[in-house]
């Protein structure tokens, strides 16, 4: 780990000022400290933001929910409103990392986490994300856990967050505060696909702070849930995952929101699958028919072809769990 200076911001203004001078925010530290130790990250100054007033889960005037950026993963998952309104968020969080890490890590830090690609973490390997122009060792390397959707010739790394998949499905927005004031970015625009600049990962401007993630109101009743398929039962990143939210009224699916994880360079929405479901009546046959299109556009690599079929089955199974059967 390289040496760094450390300051703890007493308030938001002080944090932004330190951020403007190039300081790096630290929240739970669970991924930043790890990557600093690997020398993948080399901040010269750390700005501790844990004292900032972004710790609350609050109702929004529009009828949605606002989760402060410093709310810990464990707290967000256990929050009664989150659990009852959006089980998909609670489930995605509780299927993430470990109880210890969830006690430390925050919602803001979670959506900012960087890929777990082994070549990204290995400073001796070629990686365009870490070292633009150095190449991508994963393309010809061991790429079993890598992405099949949203990839480019420059990067095939997955975004590892689970709760980001739930946020994508629920069409959340990310609230930001910078030197030029506040703004809000739709979740779909917040995490960036690699294209030819895989080193650019979020639509965050230098020095900007995430203050909250907002879930918009959804028509009720909304049934939702998260499924995660992995190499071991717990404490492991997803090979595939599916966040499903269904609004069913009068026996008809009025709205379907689906995003998948473990397969994309960013959380991946499935609008074609959603369209196939909308206006139809829940049935096993419908789940299978809709899920058939889950991997549309996939570009598998040498070792991750299995993800195509696994993804379809993950989506089909989660549709059945959330939507039930006749």
């Amino acid at each position, binding site marked *: *780990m*390289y*040496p*760094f*200076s*450390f300051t*703890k911001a007493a308030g938001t203004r002080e944090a932004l000022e330190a951020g403007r001078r190039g300081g790096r925010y*630290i929240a739970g*530290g*669970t991924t930043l*400290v*790890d990557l*600093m*130790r690997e*020398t993948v990250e*080399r901040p010269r100054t*750390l700005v*501790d933001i*844990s004292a900032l007033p972004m710790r609350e889960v609050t109702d929004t005037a529009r009828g949605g929910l606002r989760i402060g950026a410093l709310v810990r993963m464990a707290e967000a998952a256990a929050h009664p409103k989150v659990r009852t309104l959006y089980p998909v968020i609670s489930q995605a969080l509780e299927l993430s*990392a*470990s*109880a*210890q*890490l969830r*006690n*430390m890590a925050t919602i803001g830090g979670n959506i900012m986490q960087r890929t777990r690609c082994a070549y990204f973490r290995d400073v001796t390997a070629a990686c365009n994300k870490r070292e633009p122009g150095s190449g991508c060792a994963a393309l010809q390397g061991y790429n079993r856990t890598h992405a099949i959707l949203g990839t480019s010739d420059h990067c095939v790394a997955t975004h590892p967050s689970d709760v980001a998949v739930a946020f994508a499905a629920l069409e959340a927005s990310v609230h930001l505060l910078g030197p030029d004031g506040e703004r809000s970015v739709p979740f779909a625009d917040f995490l960036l696909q690699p294209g030819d600049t895989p080193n650019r990962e979020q639509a965050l401007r230098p020095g900007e702070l995430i203050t909250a993630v907002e879930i918009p109101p959804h028509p009720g009743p909304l049934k939702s849930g998260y499924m995660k398929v992995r190499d071991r*039962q*717990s*404490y492991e990143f997803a090979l595939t995952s599916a966040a499903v939210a269904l609004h069913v009224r009068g026996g008809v699916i009025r709205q379907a929101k689906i995003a998948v994880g473990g397969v994309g360079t960013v959380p991946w929405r499935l609008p074609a699958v959603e369209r196939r479901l909308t206006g139809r009546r829940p049935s096993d046959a419908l789940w299978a028919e809709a899920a058939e299109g889950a991997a549309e556009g996939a570009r598998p690599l040498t070792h991750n072809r299995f993800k195509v079929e696994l993804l379809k089955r993950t989506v089909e199974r989660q549709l059945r769990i959330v939507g039930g059967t006749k």
Partner: protein
Amino acid sequence: MEEPIPAQPSETAAVPTAPPVRPTRRTFITATTAAGATVATGGLVAGPSRVGAAAPAESPPTSPVSLSVNGDRHTVTVDNRTSLLDLLREHLGLTGSKKGCNAGACGACTVLVDGRRVNSCLTLAVRLEGAEVTTIEGLADGDRLHPLQQAFIDQDAFQCGYCTPGQIMSGVGCMQEGHSGSAEEIREWMSGNICRCGCYVKIVRAVEQAAGRK
């Protein structure tokens, strides 16, 4: 400009300022390997008198931090890179907490910070101003073992014992959080602690015993 060779976490020097602590063999070795001749004096010999003294030009940034560990107050000056795990093991002589992966992936370093179980390897000591830390050394009440410590013995829930302090601290957190309602629940909520010896079945039984379910 060429960056200096990064010092590993365990090699970062912390300077205890109160109470003064003699450098142990362990701190001596690590500090010299990390810092080489130039910085060693800054980190090492330093007692309270060095606080506030200008740091040698090359020395990495340090910060004072005051925290309580198992009820004892410590005021130390740490290299900002020092993890809580290294502070405990290398500088406070509390070697019960173990270093398995140093990356949040094994749980051997689990301690309680302000009552919550966390991975001390990913916790920067410099952030712990005012914090209350409980390690495995602080769990027993005098000679009376904590019920979970006793349960680990009763259930024979270890082989090599390397993961055990982390398992026990995590188990204490698991019970306090109310996640010890069934064997399945314990398995899931204890998944952040890996046991290479594969004692999982008995570890779950030990937590069940301490939680009063067995």
